[in-house]
């Protein structure tokens, strides 16, 4: 094969040399500093305003006060974050599983897609503020209404991502498989389903952020414990510092879950990593 020289990108990774730990840290700092600087500036401005404008801490607490409250109430915050996490993950699991099953169903039975999609779109127009108390009214203060509400807000984006992913399949790939004598199920398993993987993870990243908000909203409408109900009672006791402490916890929770989906994607799609590493 002298006519076709090996491309440099085909060499094993070790032979090309990787940037190394120091280089990666430097790169991360380089990428992250604008966002970090902006957040720091906002927090600083907020701190100055709260300290020197004479505004009451029961209206706008300073970030330093919020931080102090987080440390002081860490046990209560953790105790309330756990039910929220459980509701989020259970609802999200239910939502992903049912979105996957229905996406497969509508992919195989086209008329069903035309029947179901309008219903799903309508489900997305329901205002959560109105629906959450009703769901609590119907299903009580337990875990079930929270799971249902999380599923309600995350199902549609997952479903749309999957269906779009199936439709993104290269036409030539399907033609090729049919020319090989593949059945419809084989075409789905070998081409349509793997083609949807990047879309699936995009949907996952978007809806995991909705999921936490959904769980907190459900708790807000009525719960024994959880970050939502914690925020509500803090607000009723005129403690905005505690509300913000809980907000911080929910944001942290969302970020951790978001990071989890990114990690799962990296592990589940080794070929994507190779593409980035290979630079081709």
């Amino acid at each position, binding site marked *: *094969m002298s*006519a*076709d020289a*090996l*491309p440099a*990108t*085909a060499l094993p990774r070790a032979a090309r040399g990787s940037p190394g730990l120091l280089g990666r840290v430097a790169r991360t700092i380089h990428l992250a500093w604008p966002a970090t600087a902006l957040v720091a500036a906002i927090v600083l401005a907020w701190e100055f305003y709260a300290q020197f404008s004479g505004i009451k801490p029961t209206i706008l607490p300073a970030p330093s006060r919020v931080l102090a409250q987080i440390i002081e109430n860490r046990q209560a915050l953790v105790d309330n974050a756990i039910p929220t996490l459980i509701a989020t993950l259970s609802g999200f699991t239910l939502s992903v599983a049912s979105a996957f099953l229905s996406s497969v169903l509508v992919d195989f039975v086209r008329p069903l897609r035309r029947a179901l999609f309008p219903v799903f779109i309508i489900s997305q127009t329901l205002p959560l503020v109105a629906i959450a108390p009703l769901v609590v009214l119907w299903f009580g203060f337990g875990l079930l209404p929270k799971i249902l509400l999380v599923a309600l807000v995350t199902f549609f984006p997952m479903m749309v991502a999957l269906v779009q992913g199936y439709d993104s399949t*290269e036409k*030539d*790939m399907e*033609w*090729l*498989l*049919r*020319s*090989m*004598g*593949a059945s419809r199920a*084989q075409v789905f398993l*070998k*081409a349509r389903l*793997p083609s949807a*993987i990047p879309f699936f993870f995009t949907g996952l990243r978007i809806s995991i952020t909705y999921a936490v908000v959904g769980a907190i909203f459900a708790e807000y409408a009525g719960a024994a414990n959880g970050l939502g109900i914690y925020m509500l009672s803090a607000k009723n006791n005129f403690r905005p510092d505690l509300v913000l402490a809980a907000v911080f916890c929910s944001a942290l929770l969302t970020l951790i879950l978001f990071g989890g989906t990114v990690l799962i994607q990296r592990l589940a*799609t*080794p*070929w994507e990593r*190779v*593409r980035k590493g*290979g630079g*081709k």
Partner: protein
Amino acid sequence: MSAPRLSLSHVSKRFETLDVLGDISISVAPGEFVSILGPSGAGKSTLFQILTGSTPPGGGVIAFDGEELKDASGKFAFMPQRDALMPWRRVIDNAILGLEVQGVRRAEAYGRVAPLLAQFGLAGFERHYPSQLSGGMRQRVALLRTVVQDRQMLLLDEPFGALDALTRASMQQWLERMWERHRWTALLITHDVREAVFLSDRIYVLSARPARVIREIKVPLPRPRGMREMSSPQATKIEADLLEALLGSSAIEFA
């Protein structure tokens, strides 16, 4: 040619108001390399859609080994225009796709592909993903995936169309040597005159839509073919004839 492997007589096809194939009659003998040369958008790929069973012919008769072709599955190994490699499959798993669909067990499928890897210039790249390969290598994986299916005939749809000129030339040479060795029965679609002359035993020239066969030319150049054979007066004459036929057909279109 007493018993052609594939013969099409008066095959036509229209999509709603679009007349794609006018009247196509061609034949391919066993072990023969035949090209279909035509202007872009002449419906050459439609012909392959009909042969692979993706769409039914509008009219005419298709016969395979003397019998009317009812079910295309199992007869042809098809190589699409863009390589259609699956980015999530490693080279070796892309190569065995057809065997997998046939239900061949993975270990056995690997066993069938392994001895061919070196010939296809892919030894040592089995575990790579397609995104790590050059365009020429990707095309060779696609061709490997096509030939291991062990069908009676190859259908190649502009296999080198997306490659740069230099890679394309080297791939054509490589394919010519491979064909010398394996003598596959092959039908190649192309709009590259040189490629058709270089690879084929016989060439059909199609007109613009609705496509008809306007010329059939034998290529009696000795094999193996190289740059020397390609620059012989005979080869130059064939190329000129083909170009004239092609340009003549489109001149009618624009008149």
